[in-house]
């Protein structure tokens, strides 16, 4: 209980000091009276001689040593009392702080998670996405757009790119139906080459990865994601070596990948060997893969890009039958993987960051104005304090004692605001936004925002301390510091204007987005994904029959008006593109290529503009029929009627083409397939299934329209 004794000792010391000063004053007064002065005069003279009582006491207390903590406590109490006296003002300051800190932290956390945070793999800077590019002619403007590579390019790149250590190939659009223990589940899966884990430098936490031989032999082995392993198999390490049923075939689980292994994205839960039959490796077709490569240590992106461009030219030379010569039809692009994944969302996020920086700045200025305005009002009080013997330092401490609780309160509330904003922001982010899973409250961003606003609070609240300097006391009137305030107000107005304009622009482009008609109606439409097992239906006709039964069953359900199937739903984030050429026209264009059943367009409310729909009588024996959208019709045929003409799959650069012609039977409405913001390609629809190279029926999608009575 040492401190109790100290405290009592301290109280005694304090009384002693008071008494000492009092008696010494009395002695001084007595002496003055002995000199012949009246008591009042003597008292005054003695006090004058003594000087400032308070500062003398303070100086003595300083000698006692333990005043620091005590004065801080006293100042804090004083500060809190002052703040309580002006609750509205205090609340406004704290709220301003909290909003500034909270909002900027939240937005920056998103930006950091999506753009800045390195990928969770070792040496992420060396990971590169490699893809071919095509020149797009869009209203006289030429632009290079990357598209997905194919196995032939991968093979060539792997052999010829010397700056790249290794390149792995992934086929992301593979659906596995997991059956067996528990509910059947559709899993998003990827077929990967054996070297994907090696390129990413990831090792399974249990078991092993598969070998090149296993990949070549199309071994029925699978790697599980950490999430799937926990969710479906209870995190049991004994799963390794067990067989699971995927699309009706037994696959042996050979390993469980760590949580950080999220390739191509976090939604992938299972990986199996990518079997590439010779027919899959050919130039000019089968573009539906992803390439990730790891640069050799010390190699730069520019070097690799140079090599890649040269390789692409070489490919064209070596395959004159597959590629047009002398044209820059197909190039190559190598860019950091993180950048590639976030390439679409980046400009928006940068804009947001700038807006938030503006917001933080305005918040800080608001704070400064609030604090300085209050400080000017207190000039008189401070001058009186100084006159009563408060040292400049003591005044500063007192002002700080008021500012610090404000700052701390604001920061604490700021965390809450940031957390809350993130929790409502995350579900609102576009579903196809990459790396959403890596967004979390960023401590660095929070620290930065807090420090900046705390600094503003502290600096602004110290402004009145300038009044304690001699000239301010002596000559100036005590209204003070209006110059600083004027500047702040002017700067603030300017910034607010900038933000206002930016906000208006934002709102306008957002409204424009809302105005964009996607080309279909999602109202009352239910969708589901399914994968058809080749093990169960080895022949194409069997699959067609299965689909027919499925559509019949869906239509038979009460309330269902229309039902149809398409291989890729609009806005689903999965692309399937290709070039088409038209009979008798030298006018090839890049389009979204879709395979659909007769009821699909009606179910999604896509209007028919010309000609007729697919009908059930279109079959294997009748001419192959297709639909084009109005955008294709306008671009290729202008005012002429396209119905009755024919088109076919063109394949990239000048592939020698023996693809059969497809007759255009109708023109349908245009649909936004990629996103509402961008609309790069028109569409064509084919009734007949595309020749799928490795026998994979990709995501078949049912769309049913349920009448809502």
């Amino acid at each position, binding site marked *: 209980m040492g401190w109790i004794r100290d405290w009592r000792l301290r*109280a*005694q010391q*304090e*009384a*002693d*000091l*008071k*008494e*000492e*000063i009092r*008696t*010494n*004053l*009395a*002695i*001084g007064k*007595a*002496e003055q009276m002995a000199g012949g002065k009246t008591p009042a005069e003597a008292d005054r003279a003695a006090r004058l*001689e*003594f*000087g*400032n009582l308070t*500062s*003398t006491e303070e*100086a*003595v207390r*300083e*000698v*006692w040593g333990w005043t620091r903590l005590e004065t801080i406590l006293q100042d804090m109490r004083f500060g809190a009392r002052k703040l309580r006296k002006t609750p509205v003002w205090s609340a406004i300051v704290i709220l301003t702080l909290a909003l500034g800190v909270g909002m900027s932290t939240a937005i920056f956390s998103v930006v950091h998670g999506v753009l800045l945070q390195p990928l969770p793999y070792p040496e992420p800077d060396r990971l590169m996405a490699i893809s071919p590019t095509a020149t797009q002619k869009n209203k006289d403007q030429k632009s290079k757009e990357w598209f997905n590579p194919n196995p032939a390019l991968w093979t060539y790149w792997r052999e010829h790119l010397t700056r790249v250590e290794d390149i792995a190939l992934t086929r992301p659009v593979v659906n596995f139906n997991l059956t067996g223990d528990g509910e059947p589940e559709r899993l998003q899966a990827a077929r990967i080459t054996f070297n994907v884990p090696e390129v990413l430098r990831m090792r399974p936490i249990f078991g092993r990865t598969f070998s090149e031989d296993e990949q070549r032999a199309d071994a029925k082995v699978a790697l599980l994601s950490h999430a799937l392993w926990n969710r479906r198999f209870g995190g049991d390490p004994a799963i390794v070596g067990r067989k699971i049923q995927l699309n009706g075939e037994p696959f042996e689980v050979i390993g469980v990948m760590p949580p950080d292994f999220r390739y191509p994205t976090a939604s992938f839960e299972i990986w199996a060997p990518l079997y590439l039959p010779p027919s899959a490796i050919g130039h000019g077709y089968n573009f539906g893969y992803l390439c990730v490569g790891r640069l050799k240590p010390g190699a730069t992106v520019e070097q690799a890009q140079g090599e890649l461009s040269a390789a692409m030219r070489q490919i064209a030379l070596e395959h004159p039958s597959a590629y047009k010569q002398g044209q820059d039809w197909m190039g190559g692009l190598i860019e950091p993987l993180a950048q590639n994944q976030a390439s679409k969302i980046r400009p928006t996020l940068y804009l947001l960051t700038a807006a938030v920086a503006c917001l933080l700045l305005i918040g800080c200025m608001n704070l400064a104005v609030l604090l300085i305005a209050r400080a000017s009002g207190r000039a008189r009080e401070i001058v009186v304090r100084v006159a009563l013997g408060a040292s400049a330092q003591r005044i500063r401490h007192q002002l700080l004692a008021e500012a610090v609780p404000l700052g701390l309160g604001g920061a604490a509330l700021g965390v809450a605001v940031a957390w809350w904003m993130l929790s409502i922001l995350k579900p609102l982010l576009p579903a196809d936004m990459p790396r959403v899973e890596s967004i979390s409250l960023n401590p660095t961003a929070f620290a930065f925002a807090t420090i900046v606003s705390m600094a503003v609070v502290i600096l602004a609240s110290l402004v009145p301390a300038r009044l304690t300097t001699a000239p301010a006391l002596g000559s100036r009137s005590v209204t003070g510091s209006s110059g600083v305030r004027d500047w702040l107000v002017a700067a603030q107005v300017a910034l607010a204007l900038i933000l206002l304009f930016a906000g208006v622009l934002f709102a306008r482009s957002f409204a424009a987005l809302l105005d964009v008609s996607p080309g279909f109606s999602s109202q009352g439409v239910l969708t589901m994904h399914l994968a058809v097992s080749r093990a169960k239906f080895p022949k194409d006709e069997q699959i067609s029959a299965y689909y027919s039964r499925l559509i019949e069953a869906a239509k038979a359900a009460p309330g269902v008006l229309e039902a149809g199937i398409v291989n890729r739903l609009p806005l689903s984030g999965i692309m399937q593109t290709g070039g088409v050429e038209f009979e008798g026209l030298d006018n090839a264009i890049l389009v979204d290529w879709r395979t659909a059943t007769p009821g699909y367009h009606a179910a999604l409310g896509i209007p028919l503009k010309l000609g007729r729909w697919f009908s059930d009588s279109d079959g294997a024996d009748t001419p192959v029929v297709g639909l084009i959208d109005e955008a294709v019709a306008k671009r290729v045929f202008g005012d002429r009627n396209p119905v009755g003409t024919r088109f076919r799959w063109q394949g990239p650069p000048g592939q020698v083409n023996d693809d059969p012609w497809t007759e255009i039977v109708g023109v349908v409405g245009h649909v936004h397939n990629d996103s509402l913001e961008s609309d790069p390609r028109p569409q064509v629809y084919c009734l007949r299934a595309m020749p799928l190279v490795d026998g994979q029926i990709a995501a078949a999608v049912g769309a049913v329209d349920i009448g809502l009575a």
Partner: protein
Amino acid sequence: MPPPDKIEVLQGTLDLLILRTLQWGPQHGHGIGQAIRSKSGELLLIEHGSLYPALHRLQREGWIESEWGVTQNNRKRTGIGIAIRQRTRNPRRRSRCSRFLKGAKFYRLTETGKSQLAVEESKWKLFVKAMSRTMRPQE
């Protein structure tokens, strides 16, 4: 430039002045200030703002000690010839007592204070010697 009528106490010499003053016997703060003033021929004016902290500092160093006593005036008037050390622990009561007794806090040199004074004094003399030698006009 006319010579100043008051000079400020040099940094670090206040301790020496206080110790030296207390050599002639116990004294209270006001008395110490007055003594320095008169002994210096009204040239050294000690501010209370620095005197009191210095007294408390020296006390903490153990060079001086303090006790509550009665001033000479009171002694004459009341005839109480001895310094009364208030032993009451309750500060309020004690200050009431001392007010009643017109007592004041007296400082007195301790034994270590005396030797410290000797040290400081010789240091001071050396300093003065050095200063005057340095400042002496060169032939």
